[in-house]
């Protein structure tokens, strides 16, 4: 339970970082923290204390695997979502570099050509 709680704390920290910080690099870090907290949560969903890898090795009964094996699906999902997160991160950093070339600043409060 405490682990779930900690992943929520991480989520809230990410949100704070995203909202309160003005530097766009820090905003990007905020988004990454949010993504990772959700990945952590997703891994915890499939966690089982004392679990084994869900592979049927020689000499192991199917029932034993069912009792002890962890759920492999959340791990697969987290892998996918990490890759997606990487794609988003790469795009964010590229945009950030381009913005620095144009505006000569990382401060979001000084980047305000649009009305919103």
């Amino acid at each position, binding site marked *: 339970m405490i682990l779930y709680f900690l992943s929520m704390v991480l989520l809230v920290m990410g949100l704070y970082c995203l909202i309160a910080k003005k530097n766009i690099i820090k905003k990007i870090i905020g988004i990454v923290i949010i993504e990772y907290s*959700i990945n952590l949560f997703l891994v915890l969903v499939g966690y089982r204390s004392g679990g084994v890898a869900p592979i049927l090795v020689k000499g192991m009964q199917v029932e034993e695997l069912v009792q002890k094996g962890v759920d492999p699906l959340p791990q697969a999902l987290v892998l996918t979502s990490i890759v997606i997160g990487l794609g988003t991160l790469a795009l964010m950093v590229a945009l950030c570099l381009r913005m620095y070339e144009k505006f000569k600043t990382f401060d979001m409060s000084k980047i305000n050509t*649009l009305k*919103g």
Partner: protein
Amino acid sequence: MQTYYPLFTAIPLAAAFLNLLLSKISMKVSDYIAFLVTGILSVMAVRMLFEAPFTYAVGNWRAPFGIMLVSDGLSSLMLVVICVISLLSVIFSTKYMTMYTAKPKYYSLFLLMIAGMNGVVITGDMFNLYVFLEIASIASYALVGFGTGKKELEASFKYLVLGGVASAAVLFGIAFLYAITGTLNMPDLAQQLEVIGMTKTVGFVVALFIMGFGLKASIVPFHAWLPDAHPSAPAPISAMLSGVLIKALGVYTIMRIMFNIFGKNELISAIIMFLGALSMVIGGLLAIGQKDFKRMLAYSSISQMGYVLVAIGLALKPGAELVVASLALIGGLFHLVNHAVFKSLLFLSSGAVEYRTGTRDLEKLGGLMKKMPVTGSACAIGSLSIAGIPPFNGFWSKLIIILALFRGGYWIYGSVGVVVGFITLIYFVMLQKEVLFGKLPDSLSNIREAPFAMVMPLVVLAALCLAMGIGYMAVEGHLLDPAANALLDKVAYMNYLVGG
């Protein structure tokens, strides 16, 4: 056709990467690849309309273990909208995108976006939906910033940050759903949730989904990115974003999940109706004062999506009579299709105007009807449709939605719909006056009609506006009824699991 169903995502996905390779040999080739791919997809999508509902197990893995694709009335309808509008946008792009550099990269991102949207629409698996949602979103973030000017980059970054939060909310919701039910297959989820009922956790998931998908659909409290992002993109992309993307990623997903997975619910219905009415009013009021052609259209998108959401909300009400629910749903779906047609028409005509005059500022434009008669007439038809003038299609869909609201006993929302209809008329009359009629500024005295590749999509879309208005009965019978039935029949959706 059934065995070819995954090709709706596979073809554009493969073409996106192939395009980049082939464009190393010749820059010309990417125009043809994009045209060919969207053309093939459009033909396939139209053929899908005549298929009975079916499911497709990817890689022959039996559902609920493998990923399942579902084809029913609603996904066929959305596929037609996505593929046809993207075909017309590609034709428009061939000429318009000569204003930018790196055309092959543009087409690759465009095709990726189509792959993502088609994937969202055809999938029957929750996580698969998230993956395709991200593919379409990431491509659209990049496309918004394609001009790499100050405004474009800022808009793109803003969209990216908010879109990232939305995706996180969706993934969080999916994680919760998996924790509760232990499955990701959408029909299976529907069955499990039927047993579990509306617990607090499920309610939290609903809230996360309304936030996540609502941000993609730019419902009002989450709308801040849209008026920046849509005008900053190149015109064909604005047409795709406003015309299709917010519907495929936002409204379609909300409809599919709320109707087919969570089922009808009083609270969800009330929330969606309220947010829809709020979007209608606020989007409409903000559109009035705008001085930028595309910005006004972007605000109007928020307002028009409000109509669709109010209709969806009404149909979600468990106590509503079946007649009212299906009337509201047919009105909402019809307005969704209509909005895709006339909003892409308007954005494309704004692109044609910008291509010839070099500006989108309403104060610098005027009297273009004489100089650009075809573009002008198409733009006028689009404006009349969206403002709800008979016999164009926008009139019928708004009429049906408002009638359904009154029949369902929602006098206030119905009246709001009527008033927002007038507001829409006001700002589109203003738009007409500023752009098409009035005095031609001296600086624009030697402009010509837009080239054929740009005029052709405009004419086709304008003809569609008229045809769908006059041939409403045919549209309803072939497109809207199957889609509305697919949404209202939750049991049929749950039965897809058994290979129905």
